[in-house]
């Protein structure tokens, strides 16, 4: 980028900072901002101005008392979510699982958290199932979503422990108000496998709990949903994969 181009970007920064730029101007700034350090610095400055001057309401208005009750009533603790390991590859995940195993060993010694031997056995079995999925155990079944683009996903799972690993590659970034969500589908029904985040490369490795038999389901999908996830898919899935066994 030459100085003239960066000057054009710099002049757009104030309007861009408050969201006033048109689509072409926005694209111009976002595509070239990284090459214009002065513009980046100016944007950071305007973001501070906006935070202090524009974002704050002029006066505080107390909301109706009933609003708090509605919000609290809707804030239901979520069931155990899929754990997303952003950007970590197999070696790092194995290191984590080793640490889990070590912790389980430690718990066996201390008996601090596990109330029963059954719970401890279940945790060990889950740990072993995850390690097997990472290393390609004979007990795993690998699925690959059909891809029509440069991004892709794959779900491996272990039926006995009802646990799976969803791996995504090169997914495009989403906005701050959005998240990716995985689904398992049977006809018109969709069951959420959880929302997850991708790393800067569009990759994710997600541990997925499958508290049911996967046999009746025909496909998996990944869609973009509002931040916080959805009960059912609200957008057309980016990825759909027919479930099949290797």
């Amino acid at each position, binding site marked *: 980028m030459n100085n003239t181009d960066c000057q054009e970007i710099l002049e757009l920064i104030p309007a861009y900072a408050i*969201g006033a730029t*048109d689509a072409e101007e926005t694209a111009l700034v976002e595509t070239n901002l990284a090459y214009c350090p002065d513009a980046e610095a100016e944007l950071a400055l*305007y973001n501070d101005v906006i935070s202090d001057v524009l974002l*704050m309401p002029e006066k505080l208005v107390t909301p109706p008392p009933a609003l708090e009750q509605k919000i609290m009533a809707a804030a239901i603790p979520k069931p155990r979510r899929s754990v997303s390991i952003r950007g970590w590859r197999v070696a790092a995940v194995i290191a984590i699982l080793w640490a889990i195993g070590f912790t389980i060993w430690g718990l066996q010694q201390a008996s601090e958290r596990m109330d029963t031997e059954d719970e401890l056995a279940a945790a060990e079995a889950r740990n072993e199932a995850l390690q097997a999925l990472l290393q390609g155990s004979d007990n795993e079944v690998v699925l690959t979503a059909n891809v029509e683009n440069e991004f892709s996903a794959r779900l491996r799972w272990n039926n006995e422990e009802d646990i799976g690993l969803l791996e995504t590659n090169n997914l495009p970034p989403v906005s701050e108000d959005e998240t990716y969500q995985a689904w398992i589908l049977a006809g018109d029904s969709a069951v959420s496998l959880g929302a997850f985040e991708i790393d800067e490369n569009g990759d994710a490795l997600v541990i997925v709990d499958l508290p049911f038999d996967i046999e009746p389901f025909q496909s998996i999908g990944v869609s973009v949903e509002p931040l916080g996830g959805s009960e059912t898919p609200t957008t057309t899935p980016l990825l759909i994969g027919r479930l099949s066994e290797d």
Partner: protein
Amino acid sequence: MKDTSDIELMRRVAAQDQTAFSALYQRFGSLIYSLTLRIIDNADLAEEVTQDVFLKVWNQAERWDPERGTLSTWLLIITRSTAIDRLRKENRHLSRTETMTENVAEEPEQGIPWHDKYHLQKLLGSLPQEQRLLIEMAFLKGFTHRELAEHLDLPLGTVKHRIRSGLMKLKDMWQASLEPSRLDRNS
């Protein structure tokens, strides 16, 4: 939880602690509702949007990164985008006649975390009305340059110039207000 830091509070909210979530509402509920009302100007819709914002925070509390900004700023950014999305969905931002009334800054309640910078909000009132109107319509209602030009029947160049000039002036005033006073320097 009154003295709990924002970081600790959000850690607990991320862990689905409903007591912490209630404390979060006590701390920021008025702030979020107030900004929502300012953007949407309809009490019923503002309630719904406020609820949406808090549920987003409940479901994605771990997304707040203290390194990137204060909790209040993060919450208000989410509030603004959620409110503008709702405005567009209700098709209200273009169909209404925009009459941005004169701002009347009131004294903030005690204990608001941003109290020490509340005076900076008054800087907006120092701008010429034609610049301030465009900036507020863009920032609070989601209008772009072209939409402003069409809606207000102004040349596109005029809209761009007024917004840019107004924001540059705002930036200069903001920077000046943060500088140490001359008396302090000379003492």
